[in-house]
């Protein structure tokens, strides 16, 4: 809808609005039209269109870039739910291309090879909302200050191992709770340490939560993983490699969607967890060389 005469718009509020519409849903990585349809049929609330899922990027190595716009457009045409796509950290030209496609959400993602060694994209310059990853409160607030309308944990993408996502969810919670214990000087020092405006930090201290929704991502492989993240405060989950690297993607996709909605109902979780076939193989974090850890990307 084009903006009408006499209307006022708070672009950031609208961006956060779409993020809120996704809460309780599941966002699934898909690499083609067929997978996008499986995801939509299973009840995904959005799909992330990318050429290689994180576990393949991890295996193949090389520079991982934004996907071919043609592939993203094909997926956009095939489903009615919102479509997201990834750009490299700091790659504003890739972001401009995705905005020109009319993508619903841009993920400035550590899963791709970073393009800028110092800066992330200035997300206020875009009409398209951005989602970014974080490992702690400082990182989350730097991204929000740059204009991110949605946060997610970085977790450790492509591992099928939930430990890092849990670490990041708990760390952000702990950092927020800690603000209550700080004096005025302590808050000023913390804002400096985090490299964010004091007003933003005060807002978080007041409300006890991030000013935008926070989702879990990076390592979700089972319905129980999704339920765990929700119980730790994530408003929903992204599932990357977990679904389509499993033995029975349609069945697992449905189960993760149900578990995300009924995350606090153990009987329901039991019901949806039965007989799903083999989950993705997974990786132990300690077996990954330090330079292979994606969560360390981003500044």
């Amino acid at each position, binding site marked *: *809808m*084009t*903006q*009408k005469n*006499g*209307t*006022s*718009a*708070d672009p950031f*509020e*609208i*961006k*956060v*609005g*779409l993020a*809120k*519409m*996704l809460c*309780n*849903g599941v966002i699934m990585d898909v690499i083609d039209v067929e997978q996008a349809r499986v995801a*939509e*049929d299973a*009840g*995904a*609330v*959005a799909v992330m269109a990318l050429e290689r899922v994180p576990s393949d990027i991890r295996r193949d190595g090389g520079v991982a870039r934004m996907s071919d716009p043609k592939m993203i457009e094909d997926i956009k045409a095939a489903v*009615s*739910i*919102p479509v997201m796509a990834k750009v490299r950290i700091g790659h504003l030209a890739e972001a401009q291309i995705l*905005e020109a496609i*009319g*993508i*619903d*959400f841009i993920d400035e993602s550590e899963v791709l090879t970073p393009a800028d060694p110092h800066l992330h994209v200035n997300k206020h310059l875009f*009409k*398209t*909302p951005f989602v970014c990853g974080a490992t702690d409160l400082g990182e989350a607030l730097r991204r929000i200050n740059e204009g991110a309308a949605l946060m997610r944990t970085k977790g450790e993408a492509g591992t099928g191992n939930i430990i890092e996502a849990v670490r990041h969810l708990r760390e952000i919670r702990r950092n927020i709770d800690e603000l209550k214990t700080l004096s005025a000087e302590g808050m000023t020092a913390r804002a400096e340490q985090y490299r964010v405006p004091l007003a933003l930090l005060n807002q978080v201290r007041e409300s006890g939560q991030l000013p935008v929704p926070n989702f879990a991502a990076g390592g979700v492989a089972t319905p129980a993983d999704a339920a765990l993240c929700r119980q730790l405060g994530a408003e929903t989950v992204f599932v990357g490699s977990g679904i389509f690297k499993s033995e029975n993607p349609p069945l697992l996709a449905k189960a993760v*969607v*149900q578990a995300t*909605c*009924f995350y606090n109902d153990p009987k329901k979780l039991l019901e949806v967890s039965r007989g799903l076939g083999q989950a993705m193989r997974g990786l132990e974090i300690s077996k990954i060389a330090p330079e292979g850890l994606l969560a360390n990307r981003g500044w």
Partner: protein
Amino acid sequence: MLSSLGAETVRVRTTDDLATVDRLILPGGESTTMLRFLKLYDLIPAIQEFAKTQPLWGICAGAILAAREVLTPSQESLNLINISAHRNFYGSQLESFTTPLTVLGLTNPISAQFIRAPLLNALPPSEHFSSAEVLARLDQQPVFFAQGKTWACSFHVELGDDSSLHELFLKL
């Protein structure tokens, strides 16, 4: 928002949940996803029965679910109000915006947020349905309908801090 007006709220996920409430909001979100849940938990006949006597408000995706006819692409619906809904009519997230909106029955304009909004239109009266009443328009285009105690609007009101429409709904 509703809690601040003194109403008790329940998240309805099953027919058991539905039995505990006296009015229902079908909120914004993704109608495709919500429809799958409604089917899976047998909520369609239950909500249709509920809406015969109780107030129901479909917001954005909820309005798509409540409509008699859903287009682009076509999709099943609850058939509660005599309107059609064109999904994602106003384009992607890029075309979302906030605007003041005058609503029949309210003195002051509300702040309405259109986010990937559907296009709603009245359908001609049929055997089962009279015409739905238009409660608000944006540049001539209807954006808010009422039929009996059923409401359908293409915009969001749950994201701001204006509660005047919620108050009206609680009085239905």
